[in-house]
């Protein structure tokens, strides 16, 4: 009897242990994602709110973005089906230009905000990635809720998409690029030319 009860106890605790570790695995992943977004968000907000000139903010934010956002993965996604047909040279050139455009799109926004804060909500699975609910609070403006899609495919947690008002930034960008290439005879060079033109235009208007 004692043997049975002992074995039962043993099996029961083993089952509990397994169940516990099974349940803990996704919880731990979610915990990591939460920590990642919290630390990235805090650093970002600290730079945005700091009383330094805009140029200094841009300098500070650059390494932060490069470390925490998987720009190359987003770039590959945005080129869609044309990634496969592009030559290695085109791919390299495109990624370089995409990098510049994405970074300047983020740094352009830095001057618009002051006194912002954010809260992190629920974390859910979105395919292989984690989706983190976050709400951006700006003074005298309605709170903006968004979802950050975090992927660990590259080995470390990195942001691969932001969804605002139901629209995924990378998907919208991909359909923009795809439509442009398709209307220019399926030629990736047309896109590269347009992106170069965009960067020139941007740097001219910034001066």
């Amino acid at each position, binding site marked *: 009897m004692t043997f049975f009860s002992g074995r039962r106890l043993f099996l029961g605790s083993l089952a509990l242990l397994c169940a516990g570790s099974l349940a803990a695995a996704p919880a731990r992943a979610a915990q990591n994602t939460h920590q990642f977004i919290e630390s990235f968000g805090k650093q970002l907000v600290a730079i945005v709110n700091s009383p330094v000139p805009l140029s200094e903010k841009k300098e500070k934010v650059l390494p932060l973005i490069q470390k925490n956002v998987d720009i190359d993965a987003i770039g590959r996604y945005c080129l869609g*089906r044309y990634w496969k047909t592009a030559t290695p040279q085109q791919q390299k050139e495109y990624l370089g230009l995409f990098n510049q455009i994405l970074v300047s799109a983020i740094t352009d926004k830095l001057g618009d905000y002051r006194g912002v804060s954010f809260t992190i909500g629920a974390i859910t699975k979105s395919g292989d990635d984690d989706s983190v609910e976050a709400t951006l609070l700006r003074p005298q403006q309605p709170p903006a809720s968004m979802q950050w899609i975090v992927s660990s495919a590259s080995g470390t947690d990195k942001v691969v998409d932001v969804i605002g*008002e*139901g629209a995924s930034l990378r998907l*919208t960008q991909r*359909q*923009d690029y795809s*439509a442009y290439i398709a209307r220019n005879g399926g030629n990736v060079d047309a896109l590269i030319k*347009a992106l170069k033109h965009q960067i020139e235009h941007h740097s001219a208007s910034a001066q």
Partner: protein
Amino acid sequence: MNSGRNGTRLRPCGQAHTAQAQEAPSASRRFAKRHAVFALSLLTLAGCSSIKAPVPTDPDALEDYKQANDPYEPLNRKIYGVMMKADKWALRPVAKAYVWAVPHPVRNAFGNMILTMNEPSAFFNDVGAGKPRRAGDAFVRWCINMSVGVGGLIDVAKMAGYPHQDNDAGLTLANWGIPSGPYLFLPMGPSSIRDGIGYGIDQGLSPWNYVPRGYGLVSFNWAYNMLGVVHGRSEHLDELDALQRDALDPYATIRSAYQQQRKAHAEAIKNDHRATVPLWYHVKNRQQG
């Protein structure tokens, strides 16, 4: 343009059709003529080139084609081009002038009024979608804002914890499981077969289209609708400027954003399972029981 639906949805041409048709034969003729001209111009446009885009044979291209859900792209792009010209030369300058001339608090009050006056339509759609909590909120918003909020100019209901929740017949149909159908770019903005039909239903659901003649109500209705269009546009000046500047193919970007946002919006309404009675009611009942 995507989320400017609030304003653009309340365009004058649809409402004039119902309100004035029976009582003013001359007016109805005028509108019939205008509609005929509109239909004719659409047909001419359609005649210029094929309406439907050819279905691609390449599997990857076919995948993109299916995802865009836009078989009438050639026609849509034509309408888009015409509307963007009209926007550039007419609506956008008017909206900019409106922002320049009217102080922010006044514009805010107009925005509140437009939202409140759209609540009956939102209410009927909430009922249609089987969402009692949302319907109740829309009803309460209407009652509070039309009385205490001075005809909707002050959003008192929002301060009392009843913020506006948008709904329209296109979303209600989506909640009934009706697919969106192909994408359409209509004169009032991005849409789809389903949302276009929804737009027509919404015109029927808005009590403002049934105002009697006299007492200046029809003039008020016209002014209100035109204000709705200009105000709706004025709220998206910077966004649309940025989109026109940054997108390589603004038409495709608007299409993508619109389709994603409509899908997410319909999903959000579907997943809104909040209780109809307030929390304190449950607490009180539990204490008594």
